[in-house]
């Protein structure tokens, strides 16, 4: 019998493994950067403590990525931010921590509450942090969407920097469009972001997705999945149980991608109130 072709083997367990399991020996070593990436973001359990029902899809292109989310609750107010830092991989993953820290500082410490103002302050925070840095090897910009939910007042507000909030109710889909420029770029352009009041309609499902979701290339004509198809997909969920929708979205995106390589990080948050 041929010897195993695997250069790294599991200590003391080598003989217990079938040959096919030994072909990816690095799988058995915990990737600590990946562990950190997922550990510092709220997971589905945390989302479900703040919303009636929620799910999360987070599929970075590699082991880690530039998409992230951050959540904060104080009294009856909940802030949820989804962001997509430019680039992919480990450098973009570092930027997600910088954005999460900026959000924490502005919302938890400085108590800035208007979502549009939060985006403006984050923009300035990132600019200030990086303006004197020369030769940095990453793009400091990001797309970001943030909601503020006031449970006692039954009010919701949304602001977006190249990110939309999608609401589905009885098969009707409405987009609360974010502003058409990202945040954190090191240009001198003055950027302002609108705080949009979102009317809470019972039975609605809300979705926020990073653009990796709609930029997936595939389908019969090798095209982007696109926002219209995303909206059409969620509009068709009227008879689909909330928790089954996650699986349907993942399956639909995978089918669209087919054999093509995933071309961007993907993050989708859905919730009901």
């Amino acid at each position, binding site marked *: 019998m041929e010897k195993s072709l695997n*250069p*790294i083997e599991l*200590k003391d367990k080598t003989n217990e493994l079938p040959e096919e399991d030994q072909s990816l020996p690095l799988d058995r070593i915990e*990737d600590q*950067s990946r562990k950190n990436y997922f550990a510092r973001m709220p997971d589905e359990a945390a989302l479900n403590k703040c919303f009636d029902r929620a799910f999360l899809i987070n599929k970075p292109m590699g*082991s880690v990525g530039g998409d992230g989310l951050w959540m904060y609750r104080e009294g009856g107010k909940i802030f949820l931010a989804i962001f997509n830092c430019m680039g992919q991989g*480990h450098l973009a993953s*570092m930027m997600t921590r910088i954005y999460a820290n900026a959000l924490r500082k502005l919302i938890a410490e400085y108590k800035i509450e208007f979502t549009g103002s939060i985006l403006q302050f984050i923009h300035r925070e990132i600019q200030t942090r990086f303006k004197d840095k020369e030769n*940095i090897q990453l793009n400091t910009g990001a797309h970001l969407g943030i909601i503020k939910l006031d449970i006692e007042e039954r009010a919701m507000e949304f602001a977006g920097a190249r990110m939309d909030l999608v609401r589905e109710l009885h098969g009707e889909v409405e987009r609360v469009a974010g502003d058409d420029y990202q945040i954190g770029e090191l240009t001198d352009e003055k950027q302002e972001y609108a705080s949009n009041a979102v009317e809470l309609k019972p039975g609605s499902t809300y979705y926020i997705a990073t653009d990796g979701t709609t930029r997936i290339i595939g389908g019969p004509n090798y095209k982007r999945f696109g926002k219209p198809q995303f909206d059409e997909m969620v509009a068709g969920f009227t008879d689909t149980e909330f928790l089954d929708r996650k699986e349907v979205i993942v399956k639909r995106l995978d089918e669209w991608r087919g054999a093509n390589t995933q071309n961007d990080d993907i993050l989708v948050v859905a919730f009901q109130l």
Partner: protein
Amino acid sequence: MKSNKEEFESTCNLFINSVSNYFKHLTEVDSKINVPYIKETEGLVLKDFTGMIAISGSKKGFVYISADREMFEDLINIFIGIDDPTKADVLDMAGEISNVVAGNVRANLGTNFMISVPVVFEGMPTEVKVTTEVTIYVIPLKWKNHEAFVVIGLQ
């Protein structure tokens, strides 16, 4: 046709060039490659933090870059401008450099040379040992005042 030895050396040279180019072009500070050697004793040569990549396809094995925390902190300062990086930043930097170096080698060797995403860890994981079937080539390097190792294990 190249012998196994020549092929192994040629692959190792690609890694040496890739890591040299990484420091030269991205940090504008040349690295100094010290005399590479074949490791004959058991165990891995590891420093504080390591980014390791599995190689499959036309060649089988692994490559990793291992260095002390200070080197990765220096790189983070240059690339991202963070003066006080966390351990998570350092782990990400170890993953980034190993991914770029191996990715550049892959670009030279073609699609039959397949690499995994990096696995990044601190210290020495207890889960692995290297079998004697692997030839391990250790490339010590110095960048600024930091010492690092690029280690290639190929069958």
